[in-house]
C-alpha cells in the first residue's frame, strides 16, 4: 500500500505535465522507480500505469459509466492478448468471449518483448476508445522511449508491430459489438406513464446511454441471461408497499448520520455532476463506479505484488464483469423504466425534497452501482479471498479513506449507499446486488485462461 500511494502522487504530476507536452524523462524514472525487472523496466508497473491513465482520461473525457466500462474491457483485453505470451501458462481468451476468435499469433521463431507489444496494443485500442488520445499517445511514447533503451531495435520493432496488430484486431472486435451503431440511432423517446421514469432535477437531462442494453455482452450469453429480481409493483396508494419504499428513502434521507453521508459520498461515483448558479454552470468530474473498482483492484494487486500477466487477466475479467453488468442492468432499466425516488417523492409525498446525491439520468431499477459492485466483488474475491483492505480511491476527491473487511463487505456498503443518497429504493439496491453477483460468477466460470 505504501509504495502504491508513493507512486500515485508523482504519477498525477506526470499527467499534468503530459497534458502540457512537457514530459521529461527524469519524471518518468521517478514514476517507474519501483521497477524490479532486471533491465530496469517493470512490466507490471506498465500495466498499472495504463490502467491509471485510462481511468484518468475517462474522467477528462466525461464518459458515462457503461461506456467507461466498455473502455476498460477492450483496452485490457488488447493488453492481455498482446502480453500473455510472457507467461506460457496463460491461454488466449479466444472462444471464451462472444464473437471473439482471437488475434494474430506471433511468429514462432522470433523473439518479442511483451512489454513493447503490450504498450503498442494499449495505445492502439485506446486510440479508438478514448477521446483525449494525445494523453495515451504521450504515455506510449514515454514507455516506448524507456523500452527502446533496453530492448534490441529489431525486437522492439517486431514487438511493436505485433502489439499494433493485436490492438487493431481488438478494435475490430469492439466495433462489432454494435455500440457504434447505437450512436446513430434517433434520440431515445422515453415512455410516459405514472410509474415511468422522467428526467430528474436539477438538470432534467436526457437519459444517459439508453441503448447500451442493446450492445453485445462480452461474456454473458445475452444481456437478459440472468433475471433481475423485480421491483416493488408501482402504486400511488399511500398504503402500498411502493409508497412505503419511497417513504423509506425520504425518512432515511431526513435522518442521515454523518457516517451515512460519508458512505453516500464515498460511493457516489457520478462521473459528471452539474451544478447551476444562475448563468454559471459547473460540471464537476468524478471517477465512474467501474473506475472505482478498477482502482480498488490496482490497490490490492499492488499490495499483493501480482505479476504482470496475472494483473492483465484480473483487470480484463473485472472489466468484463463491469461491462456485462452495466449492459445487463441498462437493459433492465430501460425495459422497466421505473420512476426515480425524487420524482415520486416530489409528486406524492414532499414536493420540495431533494435527495442527498444528484440523481443520475436514467431509470431506477435496478441500481447499476449495486450490480457492477457485486460482480466486481465476486471477481476480486475469487483471486484474493475475503481479505480486509483499505480503499483510498476517493481521497483525492475529498471523501477520505475507508477500510473494509472484504470485497463483498465493500460491495454491500456501496449498494446501500444509493439508498442513503436518496437515488434508489432499497429494492433496487438489493436486486442489483443479486443480479451482479450472478454476472460476476458467470465471468469467473466462463473465462478460464489458466489450467
Amino acid at each position: 500500500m505504501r509504495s502504491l500511494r508513493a507512486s500515485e502522487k508523482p504519477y498525477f504530476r506526470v499527467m499534468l505535465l503530459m497534458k502540457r507536452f512537457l514530459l521529461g524523462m527524469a519524471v518518468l524514472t521517478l514514476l517507474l522507480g519501483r521497477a524490479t525487472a532486471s533491465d530496469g523496466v517493470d512490466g507490471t508497473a506498465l500495466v498499472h500505469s495504463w490502467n491509471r491513465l485510462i481511468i484518468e482520461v475517462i474522467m477528462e473525457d466525461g464518459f458515462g459509466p457503461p461506456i467507461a466500462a466498455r473502455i476498460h474491457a477492450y483496452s485490457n483485453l488488447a493488453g492481455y492478448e498482446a502480453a500473455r505470451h510472457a507467461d506460457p501458462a496463460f491461454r488466449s481468451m479466444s472462444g471464451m468471449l462472444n464473437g471473439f476468435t482471437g488475434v494474430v499469433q506471433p511468429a514462432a521463431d522470433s523473439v518479442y518483448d511483451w512489454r513493447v507489444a503490450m504498450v503498442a496494443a494499449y495505445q492502439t485500442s485506446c486510440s479508438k476508445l478514448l477521446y483525449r488520445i494525445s494523453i495515451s499517445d504521450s504515455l506510449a511514447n514515454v514507455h516506448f522511449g524507456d523500452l527502446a533503451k533496453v530492448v534490441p531495435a529489431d525486437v522492439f520493432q517486431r514487438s511493436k508491430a505485433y502489439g499494433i496488430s493485436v490492438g487493431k484486431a481488438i478494435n475490430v472486435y469492439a466495433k462489432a459489438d454494435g455500440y457504434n451503431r447505437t450512436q446513430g440511432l434517433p434520440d431515445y423517446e422515453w415512455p410516459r406513464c405514472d410509474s415511468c421514469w422522467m428526467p430528474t432535477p436539477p438538470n432534467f437531462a436526457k437519459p444517459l446511454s439508453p441503448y447500451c442494453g442493446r450492445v453485445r455482452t462480452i461474456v454473458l450469453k445475452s444481456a437478459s441471461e440472468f433475471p433481475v429480481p423485480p421491483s416493488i409493483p408501482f402504486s400511488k396508494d399511500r398504503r402500498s408497499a411502493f409508497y412505503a419504499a419511497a417513504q423509506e428513502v425520504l425518512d432515511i434521507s431526513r435522518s442521515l448520520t454523518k457516517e451515512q453521508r460519508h458512505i453516500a459520498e464515498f460511493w457516489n461515483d457520478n462521473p459528471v455532476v452539474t451544478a447551476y448558479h444562475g448563468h454559471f454552470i459547473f460540471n464537476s468530474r468524478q471517477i465512474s463506479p467501474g473506475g472505482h473498482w478498477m482502482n480498488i483492484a490496482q490497490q490490492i494487486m499492488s499490495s499483493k505484488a501480482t505479476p504482470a500477466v496475472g494483473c492483465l487477466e484480473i483487470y480484463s475479467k473485472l472489466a468484463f464483469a463491469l461491462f456485462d453488468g452495466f449492459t445487463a442492468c441498462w437493459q433492465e432499466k430501460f425495459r422497466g423504466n421505473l420512476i426515480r425516488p425524487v420524482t415520486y417523492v416530489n409528486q406524492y409525498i414532499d414536493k420540495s425534497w431533494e435527495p442527498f446525491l444528484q440523481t443520475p439520468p436514467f431509470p431506477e431499477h435496478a441500481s447499476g452501482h449495486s450490480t457492477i459492485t457485486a460482480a466486481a466483488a465476486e471477481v476480486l474475491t475469487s483471486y484474493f479471498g475475503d481479505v480486509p483492505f483499505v480503499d483510498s480511491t476517493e481521497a483525492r476527491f475529498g471523501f477520505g479513506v475507508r477500510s473494509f473487511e472484504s470485497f463483498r463487505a465493500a460491495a454491500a456498503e456501496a449498494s446501500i449507499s444509493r439508498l442513503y443518497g436518496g437515488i434508489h429504493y432499497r429494492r433496487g439496491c438489493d436486486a442489483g446486488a443479486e443480479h451482479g453477483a450472478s454476472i460476476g460468477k458467470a465471468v469467473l466460470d466462463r473465462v478460464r485462461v489458466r489450467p
Partner: protein
Amino acid sequence: MFTFGVLVLLMFVSYRLPGQYFSFVPSSKSQLNFRNDIIESDDLNIIRDFYTFNGGGVGVGDLDSDGLLDVVFTSTHRGIRMFRNLGNMRFEDRSVASGLVINDTLVNTGVLVAELTGDGLPDVYISRRYSSNVLFVNNGDGTFRRDSTSPVVIHAYTTQAAQIDYDRDGDLDLFLVNSGEPRRQGYLNPGINDRLFRNDGGGVYVDVTAAAGIVDKGYGLSASIGDVNDDGWPDIFVGNDFEERDKLWINQRNGTFVNRATSQMPHMSWASMGSDMADLNEDGMLDILSLDMLPRSNYRRQTQLGGMSIFGPFFDSLQRVQNCYFLNRGDGQFVEVGQMAGVAATDWSWSVLAGDYDLDGDQDLYVTNGTKRDMGDQDYSYNLRSKGVSSPKEASMAMPTSPQKNFLLVNEGRLRFRSDTSDGLTAVPQVSNGAAQADLDNDGDLDIIVNNTDAEAGLFENRVNARPFSVRLKGDLSNPDGIGARVTFVTSKRRVVREVYASRGFQSTSDARLSIGLSDGEDIDSVVVLWSDGRRSVHRGFTGTGYHTIDRRAASSDVAQIAPRPLPMMSRLADSILPFVHRENAFDDFKRERLIPFRYSKDGPRMAVGDVNRDGLEDVVVCGAKHQPTQCFVQRKGGTFVSIDCGLNEAIESEDVDVALVDIDGDRDLDLYVVTGGAEFSAGDDELADVLYLNDGKGQFTRSTTFDGGRDAGSCVVPADFDGDGDVDLFVGGRIVPGKYGQPARSVLYRNDKGTLRDVTDEIAKGLSYIGMTTSAAWVDIDRDRDLDLVVVGDWMSPTIWRNTAGRFENVTSSLVPANMHGMWSCVRAADIDADGDQDLLLGNIGLNCRFVPDASNPIRCRMADVDDNGSVDHILSQGMDDRDMPIRGRFILLQHIPTLTRQYITFDSYARASVSDVLATYDTTGMSTMLVQQYASGVLLNSAGRFDFRPLPDLAQVAPIMEMLPQDFDADGDVDVLLIGNTRTADADVIGFDGGMGLVLRNDGSGQLSPLTVTESGLVTFGEARDVVTLRRVDGTRLLVVSRNSAPAHVYALPAGK
C-alpha cells in the same frame, strides 16, 4: 445581384460617414476616479449569489442646482460615491461632504436621481440587494439626509427604480423592478414581485402594486417606460432574466395594467438584461430594445454557447438567446427585427441606451459589455478538472475575466445599425455595466459615463460637430424635469418624437433633457409637448443656441384629446366566427435527425375555399394534423361557420398538409384532394398516401377507392387544366423523405382522364419528379401563349419554371430566372404587380431577419453523408465567414451526432477555429452530397418579356418567413396589393424560430412600388405560425379574411373593417 448593388449604394449615401465622436477623458484630467472593484470573498462570490458580477450603475442630476449635471456611482459592495461637476469635464468627489455615503459592504445595484419628495430638488434613491433601498433626500444646500421612514424604503432585491406618472395626475409615481434571492439550483424559483408606489404628493407614497395588477415575480433586471400604444398613457416594459417572460404592462387608463407581452410581441429575450425605449426608425412610435448575451463573432458564439441553447427543462418557445429590437408597428403591436437590424448580438450585454450621438437626426445605440467572470466559457465549464479545480467556489474564483469592447451601433436608417468599432467609445475591452448619457458640458450633445468593474469609470466626451437643437422641460415642483412628457419636434423636414424618461438602460439615470440633430437647412418649426398629465403645449419661435426652456405653464388647462383614428383596412372578428383550432401532434424531428435545420412535422394547416354542400355559400376546408381530422366549416345563413361531419372525421392518422376543392369526376360538385405529409412517418407508410375524396353532391365525402396517391411526404396540391381539355388536372409537390433529410421527395403531375387521375410526370415533364424539397407551386401563363406554365419552389432550390408546350413541360429555369436564386422558398403566387399586363411571381422566402444570411459569395451549405459510418446521415451546415467555410452548428450538437469528432475537437476553442474541411479531414466523404442557398430575401420576379428580374420586397416584409401571400386589390384602387403572413417555430434548437413577424399588407402605388402599411392602417396582427390565408365571400356580400395558424386558433378578419 443588380439589386444588391443598389442597396449597398443606398446605404452609403443615407448616412454621414463616421468619424471619431467620443474621446476618452482620463481621470487625471477629470478627477472622476471612481472604480467598482468587486473583491470576491466567502460571502461574495458567484456560488453564493449569481448576481455578484452585475456591476454598478451611474446616475446624473443637478444635485447642487448649479446648472451642471453631477454624477453618482453605485459600487457593488463599497457603497456609493458622488462627484460634483465643476465644468469643462472636471469633477470633484463630494461624497462625504454631501452625505451621499453608504458605509456597509452590502450589495448596491441601481441609482435613481430624481425628484421624489415634492420640493423640486433631485433626490437620490439607491437600490440594494440584501438590505432596504436607501433614500437620500436633498436638503437644498448641496447636502443630503437619509430618510428611513419613507414608504418606498423597502427591501425587495430591487435592481432599479423608475418614475412614471401612471395615473396622469402630474406627480411621479415610482416603479421598482425587483429580482430575488439566489435561486435553488435547477428549480423554478420565483423572485420578488415588482412594486408600484403611487405618489400622493409631497413624498407620500402608497403601495398600489396589487391594485394595479402588477404581478411579476421574475428576476427583473430593467424597466423601460413610455407610451407604446399612443393613447397618451405610459406603459411599462420589464426585462426579466431567465425563464420568467418579459412583461409589457399596458396602461388601462384606470389605475391598472394588463400584461400584453405575449399578445403584442412575437417573442422575447431569454436572459433579458438592460432595456430602453425610443423611436428608432422615426415613424413616431416607440420601439423597445432588450438585451441578452448572444456573442457577435463566430468564435465567441461557438465558445460561449457551444451550440447549447435554452432548449431544456424550462424551455419556452417564446424566448431566445439574443437582443430583441421590438419595432412598434402601431397600437403597441411589435415585430422583432434584431437580427436584420444588426443589433441582436452584443455578447454579455448590460446597458443599452438610445441617443443621437452623432446628431444626424436619428437615434443610435450604446451597449455595454463584458463580465468579470466568463461564466459562458464552455471550455472552462466543461474542462474544469484539467485546471485542477474541484469545487464550484474554487472554480468561480479561478474563472477568467471576459473584458469586451462596448458597442456603438450607428443608425443607418432602413432598420439597419452598423457597429462602429473605430470610435473612442468602443476602443478598450473592459467589463462595463451601468451607463448614463448626459450632456455634461452643456454643449448640446450626449457624453457618456460608464461604470466599469475592476477599473476606473469611463468618461467619454462627445465632440461631434453638428447642429443640435436642445430643450429643457420645466415642470412644477413635483416634476421639475417634465418626466413622462412626449415631445414632438416639427422641423421643416420631419417630425421627431421623443419621450422624457431618465431612468434608462441598466441601473442608471440619464439626462432628462433632449437634443436632436438638425441637418443643413433644416429648421425647427414648432415643439409640441404632451405633458405627463395629458395637457398640451405648443412652442414656436426659437432663437439662439443652447438649451431652450420649455415651461409647463404655457400648457393648456385641458387634457388634450387624442384624435380618433380612421378605420383600418380590416378588423379582427371573434374566433368563434370560424372556430377552428389547429392541434399539432407532439413530434420532434431533431430526435431522429439531430443536425437538420428545420422540423418538417409542423407544416399545416392549409385551407381550401369552395361551396362544399352546394347551398350557394362559400365554405372552408381546413387541414388537420395527425390525430386531428381535416374539417369542413360550412357557412350558415348568419355568415358564421360551423364544422360539420363531412365524412372526414375518421381519417385522423395522417398529417394533412394541403387540400384542394376541385371537381375531379366531372359531376359538378367539389371533390377534395388531400395531400398528406409530415416527418413523423417513414417513406412508404400508408399514412403518407394522398387521398381523393369524392363529393356526393350534398357535401359528404367518400374516399375514392381507385386513386392511389404517392407515399412520400407532400407539400402542396395546385389544380389547373394544364392540357386544356376542360377538366382539372393537378400538380402535387413532394416535400421530404422522412428520416432522410435532403433527399427530394417525389412531385407528381396528375392528368385527369375522365375522372381518373393518372401520374404522367415522367412522360410529359422529365426531371420534375425529383426537382427538390418543394413547398409551393403556381400555374401561370408566363409567356402569354395561352397555356399554363408551372412554377415550383422549395427549400434549397431556385424557383423553377416549366414551360408548357402542347401539354409537355420543359425546365426553362436557367434561361429565365437569374442566377444565385437558391433559397428557402416557401410560397409562390402570380400577379401583375407592375401593371404591365404580364404575370409576375411573388416569392416568399425565409427573410433577412436571421442570424445567418447567405449571399452569392457566402452561401449556406448543407453537406450530407454518414461520415462516421454509424448508420445515420450527418448533415453539416456551414457558411463562408472570412473566406472560410465554417460550421454553423455548435460543438455540442455536432459531436453528439458524430461522437468520434470529439477526438479532434477536445475543446470548444479548437472547434470554433475549425472550417468544414478541417472537421471532415479524417472522414470518408465519398458519396457526400451538398445543397446550398444564396438568397434569403422574399421578393418579386418581375416578368419582362418572359424573362425575370428579382426585386426584394420592402424590409418590413423580410422580418419573418412568408408562408403565404395574397395578391388582391385590398384598397380598391385598381392595382394589386399584397397581403402576406408567415412565421415559423420549426427551426433548430439554436435558433428555435423565425417568428418576428405579424403579417403585413403592402400597398401598391399602381406602378409596382409596394409600401408597407402600419397596424393602424391595415388592422392585420397575426402572431404565431401563420400557414395560410384565404378570403371568402359572406352571405351579406362582405368578405372575410381567414388566417390559419399551426397549433393555434385561426384568425378571422372582416374586409372592410367594421363589417
